[in-house]
């Protein structure tokens, strides 16, 4: 494929490098929002970059962070994106979404707002998120969004300690008429590295058991769709052939950090080698078409992936799951994704899906 054949379908805008929570697992490790003013890129510059991205195929913009609602002109940005006819998704901890903000989100026809909830119990959620009282605010956000009939998703970060909360959260999502419940096992990047060092993460045997339990049992109990994020190679055959898998389309996305830095995604906040320029100074179109890092990524992904990812029959679909996580762990964008690597080393990766 030539550079023009790769469409830039999604932009991930990391609108703030600050966060009002202190989540123990956060993969981008943002600064506390009290730590002085951040270097936020000028809105006009951001709008220009988005307009350029539209010429490259842009259809969806995800607003995330840090906490995206810490950005003071987020409403103006949402209105701009809406006016441009782009689909808008938001990932937020929900603590800054009040009734008025929910109305604006509705007005901008945001496609989905994802809110983080790690437990149905306030004490456990607040402990994992590092700030007392945040559970109540996140729940309130879900109520406000529901009142405006906005499609929502709850995202749970899974540690060993909150495994028993999966079902309780599924039930809560059902009660709140949340259409989608996504469970993300904590990854060993950013602050998550410490979670792995202290062995508070969930090991691969347990992850596979949870996945099969959700598929066979829990998923059919509730109206809320439950997505358990695990690479396709480790999923059951029926899940593989279904449509309910989350896959990162790394060859069709770019991340723009709060200060305008262009990177693969939010990983650029901690892995600065993956940054390719800044929208204030550089031409986004030129970077998308000709930057050596993207050329290398396109050349190597998935045909030159290493380890189990290089030998998996799903590599052309999965693209090695999270390349950012693989890079953070090894400094090499071709290295295997940690879950599949762990499964392979423990002889738990399905032999029927390995070739070579």
């Amino acid at each position: 494929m030539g550079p023009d054949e790769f469409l830039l379908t999604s932009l991930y805008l990391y609108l703030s490098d600050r966060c009002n929570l202190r989540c123990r697992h956060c993969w981008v490790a943002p600064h506390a929002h009290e730590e002085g003013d951040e270097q936020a890129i000028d809105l006009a510059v951001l709008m220009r970059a988005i307009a350029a991205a539209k010429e490259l195929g842009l259809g969806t913009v995800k607003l995330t962070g840090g906490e995206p609602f810490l950005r003071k002109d987020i409403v103006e940005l949402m209105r701009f994106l809406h006016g441009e006819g782009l689909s808008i998704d938001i990932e937020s901890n929900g603590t800054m979404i009040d009734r008025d903000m929910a109305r604006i989100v509705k007005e901008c026809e945001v496609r989905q707002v994802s809110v983080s909830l790690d437990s149905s119990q306030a004490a456990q959620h607040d402990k994992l998120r590092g700030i007392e009282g945040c559970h109540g605010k996140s729940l309130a956000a879900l109520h406000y969004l529901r009142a405006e009939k906005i499609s929502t998703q709850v995202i749970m970060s899974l540690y060993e300690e909150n495994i028993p909360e999966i079902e309780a959260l599924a039930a809560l999502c059902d009660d709140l008429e949340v259409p989608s419940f996504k469970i993300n096992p904590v990854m060993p990047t950013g602050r998550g590295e410490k979670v792995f060092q202290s062995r508070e993460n969930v090991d691969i045997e347990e992850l596979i058991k949870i996945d099969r339990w959700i598929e066979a049992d829990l998923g059919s109990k509730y109206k809320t769709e439950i997505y358990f994020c695990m690479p396709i190679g480790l999923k059951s055959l029926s899940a593989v052939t279904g449509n309910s898998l989350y896959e990162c389309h790394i060859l069709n996305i770019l991340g723009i950090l709060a200060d305008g830095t262009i990177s693969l995604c939010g990983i650029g906040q901690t892995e600065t080698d993956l940054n390719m320029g800044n929208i204030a100074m550089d031409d986004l179109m030129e970077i998308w078409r000709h930057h050596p890092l993207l050329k290398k990524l396109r050349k190597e992904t998935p045909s030159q992936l290493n380890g189990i990812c290089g030998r998996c029959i799903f590599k052309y679909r999965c693209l090695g799951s999270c390349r950012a996580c693989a890079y953070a762990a090894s400094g090499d964008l071709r290295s295997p994704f940690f879950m599949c690597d762990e499964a392979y080393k423990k002889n738990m990766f399905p032999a029927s899906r390995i070739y070579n």
Partner: protein
Amino acid sequence: MKKEVIIIERLSDMPDGNIIINRLDRLKPNPEMVFRKEEEGAFLFDPHTGNLKYLNANGVNIYELCDGRKTVGEIIAFLMEFYPDMAVEKIAADTELFFETLASMQFVIKSEKNGSR
């Protein structure tokens, strides 16, 4: 007579890459492809292109009948006996479509022992 002409025309591969199968063809698995069975079905994987096709249990059974000896017509006849409650036209149409899909993706190839001419 016209039907005969159509059958002869279908013996050649189509210019758009689609491969047309007729009932006298003998198909066999392409040795360059990866075929992997699991409990509920199987995968066919092309390591050169990354193409991947999932087969359910019925698909696996039919794929495994492609041994390079049986003709497509013989396989269809066998399936008609095996599924007596199904409409014969449907069995024939579904099987031909299935083989054409597999052949277009290079997962099966025509056997050199093809006795179709």
